[in-house]
C-alpha cells in the first residue's frame, strides 16, 4: 500500500458500511455489478512486459530491482536485495515465542518509554537482516508470486516463526487467522532452494476487485506495481511512490487526464484500502506502512 490521502479523485466509490466487515471475515462478497465480469488473467507474456517496465523505472530511481533469466528455459524473475535494521527489545531467542508473544513484544516497542532499564530482563539490540525478494510467475494461478529469504549478517537464516513475527502489526490479525495459508517455506521453482512465499491463491480475489467495474481503468496500469505495492509491505518490502508515475500502456480508451498524473495515486490508495479482502483491514493512513517493522 502506498501512503496517501483519500484525495479528490472524481470517481471514488464509497463502500457500504457492512461491506468491509464482510470482507474482513475472510470471505469476499463481490458486489453484483462485478459478478460475471471476466477473470482478469495475467498471461506470462504480459507478466514479463510489466516486469520489464518495472525494472526500467527501478533503474531510473535506483530502487535496486533487476530481471534474471534462467539459462535453461528462458523464463525468469525479478530480484532485489536490501538490508534492514531492526530494533529488538527482546533478549531471548524469538523461536521460543508464540505469535502472540511476538506481536505483544513488537507493539510494546512502540508504546514503551525510552528508558529501557525500567523493563526487567530486556535489552535493546540492533540487527541487520539481509532480505532477498524474488517475483516469479505462477502458471498454475496465473499471477505473480512473491518469494523471499532473510538472514542475519552471520549467515543464519530467519526461521518461519521469526518471519511471521516480523510481519507488520497491521497484518498480524489476518496472518494469525491462517499463518499456514499465508507465509510458508517452499522450494524456489527455478533455483531449487528454500525460500519463504506469500501464498498466491487469494491474489486473484483482491486484484480482480481493483481491476473491474468502476476501476476498469486500472487495467492499463502496471500489474506488478499494483500488486507489489499491496503485498510487498506485508513482508517488509516497500514500493516507493515514484512508481505511480510509470506511464500506463498506450490504450485508446485511456483517460489521459487521470492516468498520467501522480494524483491518480491517492485514488488508487483508497481503492486498496477499500477492497483488500486478503488482509484484515486496519486503515493505517496515519502511519507510513512501508514495511518498517
Amino acid at each position, binding site marked *: 500500500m502506498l501512503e496517501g490521502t483519500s484525495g479528490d479523485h472524481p470517481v471514488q466509490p464509497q463502500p457500504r458500511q457492512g461491506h468491509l466487515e464482510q470482507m474482513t471475515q475472510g470471505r469476499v462478497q463481490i458486489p453484483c455489478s462485478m459478478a460475471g465480469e471476466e477473470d482478469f488473467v495475467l498471461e506470462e507474456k504480459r507478466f514479463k512486459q510489466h516486469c520489464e517496465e518495472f525494472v526500467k523505472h527501478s533503474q531510473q530511481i535506483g530502487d535496486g530491482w533487476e530481471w534474471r533469466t*534462467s539459462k*535453461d*528455459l528462458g523464463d525468469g524473475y525479478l530480484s532485489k536485495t536490501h538490508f534492514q535494521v531492526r530494533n529488538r527489545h527482546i533478549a531471548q531467542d524469538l523461536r521460543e515465542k508464540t505469535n502472540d508473544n511476538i506481536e505483544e513484544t513488537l507493539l510494546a516497542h512502540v508504546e514503551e518509554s525510552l528508558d529501557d532499564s525500567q523493563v526487567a530482563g530486556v535489552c535493546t539490540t540492533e540487527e541487520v537482516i539481509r532480505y532477498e525478494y524474488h517475483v516469479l510467475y505462477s*502458471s*498454475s*494461478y496465473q499471477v505473480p508470486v512473491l518469494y523471499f529469504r532473510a538472514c542475519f549478517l552471520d549467515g543464519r*537464516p530467519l*526461521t*518461519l516463526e521469526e518471519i511471521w513475527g516480523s510481519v507488520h502489526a497491521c497484518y498480524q490479525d489476518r496472518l494469525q487467522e491462517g499463518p*499456514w*495459508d499465508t507465509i*510458508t*517455506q*517452499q*522450494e524456489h*521453482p*527455478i*533455483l*531449487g*532452494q*528454500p525460500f519463504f512465499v506469500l*501464498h498466491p*491463491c487469494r491474489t486473484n480475489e483482491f486484484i480482480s476487485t481493483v481491476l473491474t467495474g468502476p476501476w476498469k481503468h486500472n487495467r492499463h496500469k502496471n500489474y506488478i506495481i499494483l500488486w507489489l505495492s499491496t503485498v510487498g509491505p506485508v513482508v517488509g518490502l516497500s514500493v516507493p511512490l515514484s512508481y505511480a508515475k510509470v506511464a500506463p500502456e498506450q490504450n485508446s480508451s485511456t483517460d489521459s487526464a487521470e492516468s498520467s498524473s501522480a494524483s491518480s495515486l491517492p485514488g488508487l490508495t483508497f481503492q486498496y484500502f477499500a477492497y483488500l479482502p486478503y488482509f484484515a483491514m486496519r486503515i493505517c493512513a496515519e502511519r507510513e506502512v512501508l514495511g518498517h517493522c
Partner: protein
Amino acid sequence: MTDDKDVLRDVWFGRIPTCFTLYQDEITEREAEPYYLLLPRISYLTLVTDKVKKHFQKVMRQEEVSEIWFEYEGTPLKWHYPIGLLFDLHASNTALPWSITVHFKNFPEKDLLHCHSKDVIEAHFMACIKEADALKHKSQVINEMQKKDHKQLWMGLQNDKFEQFWAINRKLMEYPPEDNGFRYIPFRIYQATTERPFIQKLFRPIASGGQLHTLGDLLKDVCPSAVAPEAGDLRFFMHCTHVAMCSHRIYHLDKGQVKRDKKEGEIKSQRGVMWLVPGHTERMPICKRDTFANTFFGFANTFFGWIKVVS
C-alpha cells in the same frame, strides 16, 4: 473410476524397503543399530519416520539432537517430495533395500525446507492439492469443499486410509461429462541433474481439433530435447510405473485406465515397482537407459492421476 480401483490401490499401497543408518559422525552413547522400515511411496519422509527418530534418539544425548534430516549418497533428501519420487529419482537403479543416512546435526539450510511439526507437512500437502485443482478445475472443486473434507484428505494420507482418502479425492479427479478432461493437466517432470527442480507448464489434455493428447505430445511440448531422436531411448517413471516410450504415442493422460493384456500390455509387479509394457501392434524395443533415465514424471498434486494405455 471403479475399474481403476485396483490400480489405485496398487499405487497407494506401494512400498519401498528401506534401511536407515545413523550418520557416523553423530555422537552416540552406544552403538546405533540400523533400522528397517517399509516406506509408503505415497507419503512424505517426515510423516512416516517417527519410529526411526525414536530409535536413534535412544542412543543419543538430548543436547546432540536437533532437527532430523535424511541423506542418500551425499544428497540431502527433500522431505517435501513424495517418497516414491525420491526413490525413483535417486536410487531406482540400486539394489534394495534403499539405504538412507540419518542426521541430527548441521541441518542443510540451503537445500532443505524445515519441518518442525506435522503442521508443516499438512500445509505443504494441501498447497499441492490446491495448486493441482487450480489447474484441473480453476480451484472450483477444492474451494467448494468444506474444511472437514480437506482434513479428511490429510488424515487419510497421514493414517494410510485408502478409502477415507479417495472418498474425497475422487471428486478432485472428476470432470463434467460435457468436457473431455481437466482444464490443464497437473504434472511435473523431475530431473536429478538440474538446478531447476522440475518442469511444470500449462498443458491441455484435449487438442484444438478435439483429439486427446498423449504423453508423447506432452513431452514433445514441454521438454522437446528429451524426446528428440538424438536423445536416444528414454525411460520415464510415473509414480511407481515405468512407462515405456515409443514412437507410437500410446498414452492418454486421463482419469486412468491401464490396459491389462496378458501378452503385451501386461502389468508386471517387480519389487514393489509396477512395470507397464505397452501393448501395440508393432514390436518396439523397450527403451534403454540414458542420461534422462532419472526423469520422473508425476502429478503436481502428487501421484493421484494415472495413465491410460491405448493400443
